[in-house]
């Protein structure tokens, strides 16, 4: 079985500051990793995903994440956040070779203020 830990339930940050949202996972098999974003009153949408290849993955809206196999982490970063980035962010994993059953973390609420 897989598990995902997002240690920070809330991250307050000022506009134009950098941000890192942390994600650690546990799995006995190889996994694919995802970050989804949920804006207020909306469903989730994919920010980025790591399947293979370069460990630095770039996504939409200026976000990027780095897969670190030795530390079993997949932290999400943005060098300069905007008010519109205020949302909840979910990290998720799925074992490779299965029918894309995702296991989600508990989410991190990013609150961007002026």
């Amino acid at each position, binding site marked *: 079985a897989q598990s*995902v830990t997002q240690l920070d339930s809330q991250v307050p940050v000022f506009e134009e500051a950098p941000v890192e949202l942390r994600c650690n996972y546990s799995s006995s098999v190889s996994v694919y990793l*995802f970050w989804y974003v949920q804006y207020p009153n909306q469903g989730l949408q994919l920010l980025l995903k790591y399947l293979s290849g370069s460990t630095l993955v770039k996504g939409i809206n200026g976000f990027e994440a780095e897969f670190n196999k030795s530390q079993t982490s997949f932290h999400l970063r943005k060098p300069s956040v905007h008010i519109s980035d205020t949302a909840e962010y979910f990290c998720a994993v799925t074992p490779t070779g299965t029918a894309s059953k995702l296991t989600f973390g508990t989410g991190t609420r990013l609150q961007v203020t002026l």
Partner: protein
Amino acid sequence: DVKVTQSSRYLVKRTGEKVFLECVQDMDHENMFWYRQDPGLGLRLIYFSYDVKMKEKGDIPEGYSVSREKKERFSLILESASTNQTSMYLCASSNEGLAGNTQYFGPGTRLTVL
């Protein structure tokens, strides 16, 4: 663009009622999923379906059933609603095969059971 629609954004039901939540996708996806989202718990998989008339239990299937009679439609059924089923319900779909395929989410149905 992939579109996943859910029949209601908000729903209020009474304890003991039978509740149907409907989900429709327009991208001919084989896989469809039902999750519930609760604060501090993230998203938890209730059921998923990888083909018409096929279903598989997720992590929290108790108290729920599903129906998939047509490829584009996946229904979640609460046979006898209870107050602990008050939650946000999210439907998603994805292509078959690769575990790395993106899941596309609907906007969610916020169900309140009184």
